[in-house]
């Protein structure tokens, strides 16, 4: 057992949580002892090394109100928030920060403040959306969970505003661990919008963020979900989004990640009710010596569901990206429509991408397509731009940005688009004013 493994167990024992969460935690602690630490020989960790994490000694900050008050708010100078009129929950180094948050609503609560009905919802769903036993860090998150956010929209009600969850890592020097947990339960005929934003202050961060989200989209319910990983490069982030889509449920998901020392995000999405519809788009942009690893696994268990998944990455400098996208069509899932596309742009000779689209089909009446490309820029388009007087280097930047801008333009929440567009444009040296004018 590694230092990390051992210490994680001790930390799990030290956590204080509501009594009704203790069963889950105790079981997870037992499971954690049996967990086999992933190495490069583990299928789903082939390209991503956990060596640096394994050597770290995690420390968890206590999630108590008194401590959150005393924390510095200087992070606000470094991190801009998305300008969205929302129910906002800000966590600083994993600790809820009431001062930076808005008032919560009846449907959006912290686990520690859940009423008995909500406690029942949490107990019913927490840990149950997680699929499969290969999610080591889900087990860890369960073992550590002492606080979290519940978004529960009961049947026939609506959520008045989007939910905006922010986690900012601020502590330097010390290797702090952050155990973030979100549970979204949309009952029948409801709709909601949830934005997860992971950020860090500038400087030498050494945090480990384990952010786990579970989502149940009920019959005829609709969810817009955003998950943005905008942390600076020393952050180690291992995150996952586990989703159950019920009958005629609809989810539009968008995720974006800058690279960092270690960044691994899993999407596990299950079509569990006929007629469910998933639209998932992702963008990853590692630079320097950063890495990003996205693993997605969409499972069609029942007939008549659709999946449209598009991921694009631009890998610059000596950065590395991993994309493993799997769509699994179970025998019962007739009339499935599924598409998966992954395109990568390498802008340097030292950039690396490992992409693997996987389609496993065990039903005979389905329409599926998948594909991955790794390319340099389109030479005809390059010639076209140059023939208009635009220099080669300028054309390269324009086209690189265009490659992801295509996806950004489809982001449904204007506030998210308006937040990302100028920041990414800046990353590619584009003129912000012109882009905004072109809206």
């Amino acid at each position: 057992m590694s230092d990390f493994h051992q210490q994680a167990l001790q930390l799990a024992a030290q956590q204080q949580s509501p009594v009704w969460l203790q069963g889950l935690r105790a079981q997870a602690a037992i499971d954690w002892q049996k967990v086999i630490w992933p190495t490069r020989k583990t299928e789903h960790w082939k390209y991503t090394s956990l060596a640096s994490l394994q050597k770290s000694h995690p420390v968890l900050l206590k999630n108590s109100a008194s401590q959150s008050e005393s924390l510095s708010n200087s992070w606000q100078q470094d991190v801009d928030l998305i300008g969205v009129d929302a129910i906002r929950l800000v966590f600083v180094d994993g600790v809820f920060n009431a001062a930076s948050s808005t008032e919560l609503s009846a449907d959006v609560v912290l686990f520690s403040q859940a009423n008995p009905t909500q406690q029942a919802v949490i107990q019913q769903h927490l840990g149950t959306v997680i699929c499969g036993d290969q999610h080591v860090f889900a087990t860890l998150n369960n073992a550590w969970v002492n606080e979290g956010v519940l978004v529960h929209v009961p049947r026939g009600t609506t959520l008045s505003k989007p939910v905006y969850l922010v986690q900012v890592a601020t502590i330097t020097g010390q290797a702090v661990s952050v155990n973030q947990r979100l549970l979204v339960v949309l009952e029948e005929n409801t709709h909601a919008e949830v934005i997860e934003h992971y950020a860090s202050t500038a400087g030498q961060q050494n945090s480990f963020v384990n952010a786990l989200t579970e989502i149940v989209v009920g019959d005829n319910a609709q969810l817009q979900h955003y998950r943005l990983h905008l942390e600076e490069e020393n952050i180690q982030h291992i995150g996952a989004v586990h989703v159950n889509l019920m009958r005629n449920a609809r989810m539009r998901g968008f995720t974006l990640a800058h690279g960092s020392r270690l960044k691994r995000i899993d999407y596990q999405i299950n079509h569990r009710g006929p007629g469910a519809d998933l639209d998932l788009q992702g963008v990853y942009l590692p630079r320097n010596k950063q890495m990003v690893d996205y693993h997605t696994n969409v499972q069609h268990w029942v007939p008549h569901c659709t999946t449209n998944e598009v991921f694009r990455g631009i890998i610059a400098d000596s950065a590395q990206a991993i994309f493993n996208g799997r769509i699994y069509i179970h025998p019962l899932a007739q009339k499935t429509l599924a598409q998966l596309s992954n395109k990568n742009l390498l802008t340097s000779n030292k950039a690396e991408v490992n992409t693997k689209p996987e389609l496993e089909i065990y039903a005979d009446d389905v329409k599926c397509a998948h594909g991955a490309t790794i390319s340099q820029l389109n030479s005809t388009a390059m010639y076209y731009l140059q023939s208009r007087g635009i220099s080669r280097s300028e054309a390269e930047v324009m086209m690189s940005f265009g490659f992801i801008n295509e996806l950004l333009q489809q982001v449904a929440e204007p506030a998210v688009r308006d937040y990302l567009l100028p920041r990414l444009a800046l990353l590619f040296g584009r003129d912000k004013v012109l882009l905004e004018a072109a809206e």
Partner: protein
Amino acid sequence: MLRIANLFAKVEEKEILKGLNLTINPGEVHAIMGPNGAGKSTLGNVLSGREGYEATSGSISFNGKDLFELSTEERAREGLFLAFQYPVEIPGVSNMEFLKASVDAKRKHHGQPELSAVEFMKLARETSKRVDLDQAFLKRGVNEGFSGGEKKRNEIMQMMLLEPGLCILDETDSGLDIDALQIVAKGVNEMRAAERSFIIVTHYQRLLDYIVPDFVHVLANGRIVKTGGKDLALELEEKGYAWLEDEAV
């Protein structure tokens, strides 16, 4: 303006142009016609400097400069403009941004300051009206989802914004209906000026009813085999190219 002397050029090891001569003076409109595979599009691409289109011998001087010494983008900034037969779709790159980058590149080359975003947008909107292109197209990706006619009008709009000295229109009439053809022709005619020359590459005489050329050349087998006035186009329409190819041998 442009002097092409004994030009040989190959594309992917295949010799396409075989001793082409052409001189164009300021203000002239030259139509180049000819059968498929004669080298018409190759000429446009060689002039514009497309990668893979290699001149093996001969010379081209453009406003007194050796064209082969200039990169594709430098040729554009010096005032050479090629309207593409198939304008390229570049999703994600805003048309507005593309047009401004292109105009700025030229202005910078000539020692003029870049236009402000506001100035440029005003100019772009005015110009889009001249080619009857809805302003919504400025916001879209470059040529993204444009119809054939809209793409060609976007080409003419770029030409208007860049105010080139030499405009090469490579089968701009292909795929256009009569209305779009007239808009394109009107745009070209508005641009005609004493200091500006045109090379109109086309298969059909029809376009030349709207853009009346000073000279008509027949390009066959990599060379200009016949030159005449605008009436030559009518003769070609009637007789085809075969008689000229026979003559050329």
